[in-house]
């Protein structure tokens, strides 16, 4: 009675559904098991709805700042609940799109929770249906973590997922964690008028980014009235009626908040997957894989948040393509995590690809860097958004561009150029020798490359 497939994919997020489509393109018969929504966290509770909220907040910010441009608006009121509704609509629309893609490509979608029942089979709960497969791709993703001992109750202490369905705007928000999720929500809530405090344990917001970017972001946040507290640890958290009191290490006075958003990271959904029974090894919950994304059990592959950082949707998708092409015996591209682009949509936006200056030095490169501030960029001046900068990290021997780091208006869209430069192993001469249209923010990328060669024009 068990149905046979070439590949069974467990999880329908950006890892699973992309892997399924690629496998169909290669002529495999594919089943995909998804317990909740096609599209996964990214599409339903992550990337997409937050981008919708950030865009709504951006519209509001433009209206609020209209006076700066001599545009009188009168009193402005904004409905946060409506913004949440719009973000849900965006998510639903895209989830339907994934559903259509599954049908179009002939992927057999099975609703339920998939679990390994043997080296060649997946059992779907609760129906008990068994799927037999030559290869299995695990793409069960991750979920928000909390601090030890702190329960995510969804009322006072929320995960990002809770926050995305909460239509009421809190008065005072404390965001624990200054990573991408934390700073994006800080921008959303602050624009709608909440008092926002961001707590980060490490010395800077966005601790994985180039410190110059984080400093520019921290300055911008302070101007916007967002409290940024870095180098602090939460020692205790207590609920008092409708409020939360957060105690910081070494401080007597607790922080009071109407809502706490936990944005301290993501943990893998590796429990109850049947890994132990098959002897598939994990490391702190993350499934161990080789460079083809194969687990310690041949024929079973794992991708995405389940296997560890960088926990980004596009990384999961690429890993899934590598896994599927390897299954099909095709030559696979080399995965280079540090060459994956990273985009954060706070205000101003932060984007980067490749190595930071410190990482490049650690790897023994003879590093050269070039920085170009947006104060000297015509387009940024015209937009009256000159707070950003572009930093290019290169090396001296071949002139290779190792990393590009951007902060400023719409820099997440310029990131594509930087990604191409780093992934094609462009040299500083090549990037600096490429004419960029004037006036664009992207000109700053060329100028930063020229700056690394000691010959920026406009600075």
């Amino acid at each position, binding site marked *: 009675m068990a149905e046979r497939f070439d590949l069974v994919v467990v999880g329908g997020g950006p890892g699973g559904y992309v892997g399924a489509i690629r496998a169909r*393109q*290669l*002529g495999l018969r594919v089943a995909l098991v998804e317990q909740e929504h096609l599209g996964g966290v990214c599409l339903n509770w992550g990337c997409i709805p937050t981008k919708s909220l950030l865009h709504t907040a951006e519209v509001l910010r433009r209206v609020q700042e209209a006076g700066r441009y001599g545009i009188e608006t009168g009193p402005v009121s904004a409905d946060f609940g409506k913004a949440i509704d719009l973000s849900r609509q965006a998510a639903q629309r895209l989830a339907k799109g994934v559903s259509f893609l599954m049908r179009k490509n002939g992927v057999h979608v099975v609703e339920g929770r998939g679990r390994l029942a043997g080296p060649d089979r997946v059992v779907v709960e609760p129906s008990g249906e068994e799927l037999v497969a030559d290869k299995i791709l695990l793409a069960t993703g991750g979920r928000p973590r909390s601090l030890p001992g702190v329960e995510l109750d969804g009322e006072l202490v929320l995960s990002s997922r809770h926050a995305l369905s909460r239509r009421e705007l809190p008065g005072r928000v404390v965001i624990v964690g200054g990573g991408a999720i934390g700073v994006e929500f800080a921008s959303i809530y602050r624009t709608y008028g909440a008092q926002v405090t961001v707590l980060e344990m490490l010395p800077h917001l966005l601790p994985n980014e180039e410190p110059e970017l984080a400093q520019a972001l921290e300055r911008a946040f302070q101007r916007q009235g967002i409290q940024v507290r870095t180098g602090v640890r939460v020692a205790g958290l207590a609920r008092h009626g409708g409020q939360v009191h957060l105690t910081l290490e070494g401080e007597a006075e607790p922080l009071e908040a109407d809502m706490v958003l936990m944005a301290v990271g993501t943990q893998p959904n590796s429990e109850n997957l049947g890994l132990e029974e098959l002897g598939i090894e994990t490391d702190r919950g993350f499934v161990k894989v080789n460079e083809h994304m194969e687990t310690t059990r041949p024929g079973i592959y794992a991708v995405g948040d389940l296997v560890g950082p960088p926990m980004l949707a596009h990384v999961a998708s690429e890993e899934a393509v590598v896994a599927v092409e390897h299954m099909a015996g095709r*030559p*696979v*591209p*080399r995965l*280079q995590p540090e060459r994956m682009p990273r985009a954060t949509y706070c205000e101003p936006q932060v984007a980067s690809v490749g190595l930071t200056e410190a990482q490049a030095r650690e790897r023994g490169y003879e590093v050269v860097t070039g920085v170009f501030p947006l104060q000297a960029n015509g387009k940024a001046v015209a937009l009256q958004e000159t707070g950003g900068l572009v930093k290019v990290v290169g090396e001296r021997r*071949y*002139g*290779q561009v190792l990393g590009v780091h951007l902060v400023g208006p719409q820099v997440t869209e310029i990131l594509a150029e930087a990604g191409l430069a780093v*992934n*094609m*192993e*462009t*040299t500083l001469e*090549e990037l600096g020798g490429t004419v960029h249209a004037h006036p664009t923010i992207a000109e700053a990328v060329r100028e930063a490359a020229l700056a690394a060669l000691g010959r920026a024009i406009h600075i």
Partner: protein
Amino acid sequence: MIMPQMGFDMQEGRLVRWLKQPGDAVEKGDALAEIETDKATVELEAFESGRLAKLLVEEGATVPVGEPVALLEPLAAAQAPPTLEGREVDGAARQPAPTREPAPEGTPAAAPPSPPPPPAEPAPRGISRVARQMAAEQGVDPATLQGRGPGGRILSHDVEEAARQSQAQDAQPAITAGEYRFVPRFHDPAHYLGEAAAPQAQRLAGQTLGEHPFAQPPATTDPETTPPAGDGISSAGEAAPAPASPAAPSPAPAEIKPWSRMRRTIARRMSQSKREIPHFYESVQVLMDQALAFRVDLNRELPDEDRITVNDLLVRASALALEEFPNLNGTYTDEGLRINPTVDVAIAVAVEDGLLTPVVRDCNGKGLVELAREVHRVVRAARKGRLKPDEYAGGTFTLSNLGMFGVEAFSAIINPPQTAILAAGGARQQPWVVDGQIQPATVMTLTLAADHRVTDGVEVARFLNRIRELLEHPWLLVNPHLAR
């Protein structure tokens, strides 16, 4: 299948003979034909597996680069899975084969009109500039790499991986520049410099000679240093094959060992050179004591792999002198002398059954050590058979150095279309008369062969004297304008 470009200055190639016939099944990489360029004869390999559908040119025809020579039908698409890619392959295979007359006999060079590009041509793979440079440095041939970057692009990691693998495969340690180290046989700078380096130098010479194609038999170059055989009996006498008695009849017909492609190419090019170019020769003797001392001094400051050899000094001196005598760096054409903007010195390197001439480009754009490093790199690549076409084509002058083989002096044949070739003998100590006194001196004989259509005796004499000046005042090799 098109006529491939096998060197950056290759414009056409002659199809010597077909190795496969229409209808033959071919595997990717199979040799389809022999192609002769002005540099070498090489095999035309199938870009992919399939069936040879049609030959478009006859044997003996000369075909411009990029022109089709045959139609190759890819493997039937039926074998591919029913995927998007499969359908694409299918579509390509069904394209009607362009019909063409074979090139008529007697006009082999006539370029026929261009048909649409053949369907079997593979998409060119990209390589990053970083990877290309790294490959050149590590002696990795990019054509052998499987790119694993975006779209199959060859990136630095691919080169690094290949270099690691080839290192792992080479059980022997990597050949260092020591191989080309000049170890004088008849004098040793260490002796008169009061430096006890001689044993080490000999050890190195022994090691490296063992890997050298000319190493057999070492005794002919220096009988004095041949170590006695362990058992006290002359090993040379035992090892030598018994000479055939001249009176003995030889009933079996003489065996003919066919020429290798390399020998054929050498034969053709050298005959052509001697036939067409009016050679003339001039020799000078150069006192090398200063240069040898300079080299020993310099090498004290350099890491082992960058140690300068006498050969490097000769490349340097030639290149600097050529800068001042552009005629000798020029290329003869019927219309006039082409003046070459850079000095690109080719170095004759002995390899099994022949020789190669790897080229060091823009010699005078490099410092002495940088130049030496590049000389070592290309020579090493030549010995390992890893030269890329653009690394052995297009030199503007050639240096042939047999000094390390105990040769006193010789003259060489010009490497067309160049104008001159320098032949260097060994530097050896001999009596030298200075002011009526006999003194020991280390003397090397340099012989230049030059094209009399381009230059004359006096110019060559001045050129050779400049080389002598540079070598006898070796600090000029660092900066030739010091004395000006």
